């Protein structure tokens, strides 16, 4: 079963770290990604650019509405994600708990609903 692990955190937190600390976090992420690739969990994942780069689009009455900013303003922002294959929720939670940001941010674990490609 696949799960999407959504990494939420306060963007400012990362900005306030020293360069050495930032490099430490990046290195930790690299090691984590490698480890879940080796264990067979990894299906994909990316860091997202800052929330200030977000654009939201809606179509109403066939008209496209484009606005600056994220869908919802929140104290913690979606900063990245992993797509994993896990045996069950416990397995997914164990992987999520090892994401470095889990120590200062939050990881939302969402099961993926499978659909066949039409």
């Amino acid at each position: 079963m696949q799960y999407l692990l959504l990494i939420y955190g306060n963007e400012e937190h990362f900005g306030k770290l020293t360069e050495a600390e930032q490099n430490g976090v990046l290195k930790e992420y690299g090691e984590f990604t490698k480890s879940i690739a080796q264990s067979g969990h990894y299906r994909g994942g990316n860091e997202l650019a800052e929330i200030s780069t977000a654009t939201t689009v809606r179509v109403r009455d066939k008209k496209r509405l484009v606005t600056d900013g994220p869908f919802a303003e929140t104290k913690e922002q979606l900063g990245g994600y992993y797509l994993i294959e896990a045996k069950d929720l416990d397995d997914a939670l164990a992987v999520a708990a090892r994401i470095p940001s889990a120590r200062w941010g939050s990881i939302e674990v969402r099961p993926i609903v499978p659909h066949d490609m039409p």
Partner: protein
Amino acid sequence: MDVERIYREESGRILATLIRLLGSFDLAEEVMQEAFAAALEQWPKRGFPDNPRAWLVSTAHHKGVDMLRRRTRFDSKRDELQRLAELEQQLSEAEENMLRPDGVSDDRLRLIFTCCHPALVLEARVALTLRTLCGLTTEEIARAFLVPLPTMAQRLVRAKQKIRDAKIPYQVPPKRELTERLEAVMLVVYLVFNEGYSASSGDAAIRRELCAEAIRLGRLICELLPGENESHALLALMLLHDSRRAARVAGEGEVVLLEEQNRDLWDHEQVREGLGLVESAVRGGAAGSYALQAAIAALHAQQRALKRQTGSRLLRSMRRCCGCSHRPWLN
């Protein structure tokens, strides 16, 4: 022996096994009800089977497989077909296993840990535990928690949906997660007991039943996981408080303070059992909030005449205990 009593005592176990065999809470509940209905009809005529539980599990299991087979005919998904093949293979295997007592207790432990999974909202954990392990009806649970019936039914449906859709596993957690997960289980038991113990609301019969169910669950956990001292402390805590039930409320329903209680009304057998459990739990290293509260309850139970100035040791314990949420017995 009657079917109703078997339902009361065995439905938790039977359901636990059926959920493992059929892989679905809803289907397991449905076929268990059907099996009991069949028992009500057949047993009085043909006599009781030697092993009623085995009869019920195997009858329900056959019904479950039939039902899945029928559904599959309409909806022939590959996954469903594969699941069905597995089930049929399990069928004979399961009937053998069922007669081995250890296999069955594993099922109940699985059910406890799944119902009390921290990924479920606390109210749902409590409701699901009472529904599946204790066999209370949705209506009884709704009445016990003063929640409208549709709200409670919805809560149970959502919890079962999450178990299915997020794939909360039906298993006893591995050793390294056991302490953390057992805490979640104990919290549920503690809340059930509290709800039954606090004299604030609900009707008396249901409250008494909640206390009894909490104690039953507490015993079950101690029996299934004998090495866990903290859960022994929780059982002791419940036994000690429950032992004062008869002395705690006066005729008009008002609460009688500990100092003024008629101690002849205490259940001394329960007090003794509780004291023994506290002692062995603390000696075994239990030092969490249940152990602390149980130790306080033990002090209360032992003091012949409780004075207002009960000594700073007890007060210190109580202050340390202030982090704990709801403690109606500290009145």
